[in-house]
């Protein structure tokens, strides 16, 4: 099992009681599965993704990632595990404003002991795949929202992680045919051997492509 959650809960103290953001979440995700998480605003979708992405450590329950008990790991071990295996697309892009597109794409590689020469090659390759070579020397504030999101997606996949977690990654994207085949979300499809072109970015299609029935239950996870 790639990801396994057992009774994961996250709550905040609120007056004399507690407000639960997530309650008793149990889910298993196998390698190669493409899972969509849907739910109303405030259901805890982003919270769950940040727990899965190991950005959030203030929760209770059991989380097994590639059979490793994340709930028992110290922050350094979690960071190592996250660094090796997870790419994360943030809802609000989170590009660094003082760095160019090229430098933003280079960041994940610089923390993975990739040599300078290999970094150049990998960044060049991803710029080409996403058709943003011409933007490499621009700063995020010189890009449109869609272009920033595209860079955010490119940054998440550049280190070729085994798991890609994407928090509403497609809202601002305007995707051309080439990017469909080589770009962001289709990577999940390619991983399961499905490389057909199409429009995987529409929410209907994302849901239809989701392998996991539990993906549609998030609205009920919150009590």
């Amino acid at each position, binding site marked *: 099992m790639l990801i396994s959650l057992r009774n994961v809960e996250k709550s905040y103290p609120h007056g004399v009681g507690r407000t639960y953001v997530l309650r008793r979440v149990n889910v298993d995700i196998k390698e190669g599965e493409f899972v969509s998480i849907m739910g109303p605003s405030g259901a805890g979708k982003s919270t769950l993704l940040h727990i899965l992405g190991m950005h959030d450590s203030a929760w209770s329950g059991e989380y097994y990632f590639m059979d490793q008990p994340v709930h028992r790991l110290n922050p350094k071990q979690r960071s190592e595990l996250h660094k090796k295996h997870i790419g994360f697309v943030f809802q609000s892009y989170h590009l660094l404003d003082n760095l160019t597109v090229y430098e933003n794409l280079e960041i994940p590689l610089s*923390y993975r002991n990739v040599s300078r020469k290999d970094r150049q090659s990998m960044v060049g390759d991803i710029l080409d795949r996403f058709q943003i070579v011409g933007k490499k020397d621009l700063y995020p504030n010189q890009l449109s929202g869609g272009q920033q999101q595209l860079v955010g997606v490119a940054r998440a996949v550049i280190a070729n992680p085994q798991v890609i977690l994407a928090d509403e990654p497609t809202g601002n994207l305007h995707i051309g045919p080439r990017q469909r085949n080589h770009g962001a979300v289709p990577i999940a499809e390619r991983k399961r051997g499905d490389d057909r072109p199409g429009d995987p970015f529409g929410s209907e299609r994302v849901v239809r492509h989701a392998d996991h029935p539990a993906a549609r239950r998030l609205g009920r996870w919150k009590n």
Partner: protein
Amino acid sequence: MTTLEQYCRTVGRDAALHRDPASAAFAALALLLAGFGLFSVMAYSVAQRRREIGIRMALGAQAADVRSLGRHRRRCGSGAMGLAIGLAGALAAARVLDSLLFGVSPSDPLTFAGVSRGAARRAAAGGVSPGAARDAASTR
């Protein structure tokens, strides 16, 4: 054998120190305030970068990477610039203090080197202090 000039210099310096403890206290206070100010500015400038630090950590940076980022950039950038400006100002103002100094030149290289070293260490400490980089490094 002590010449009259040496004797007067020694007696004059000792007398100045004993006669004017207030000056020494003010000097110590000024040094303390300068160090505290420098530390605060450096800690603030690092704290301003919490968002960047958080993003970098989400992309794989370890706490040690963040600490070295703050230390390296701060010390090499604004810290060095502040040191250069401070040294230039101190050299220019040193002539005014000439008449108040005993047994030491207004441009004494050892004094300047010592003060610069102390200021640089405070600046570096500000970059990795609690509440600054270490605090930001724990941002999740």
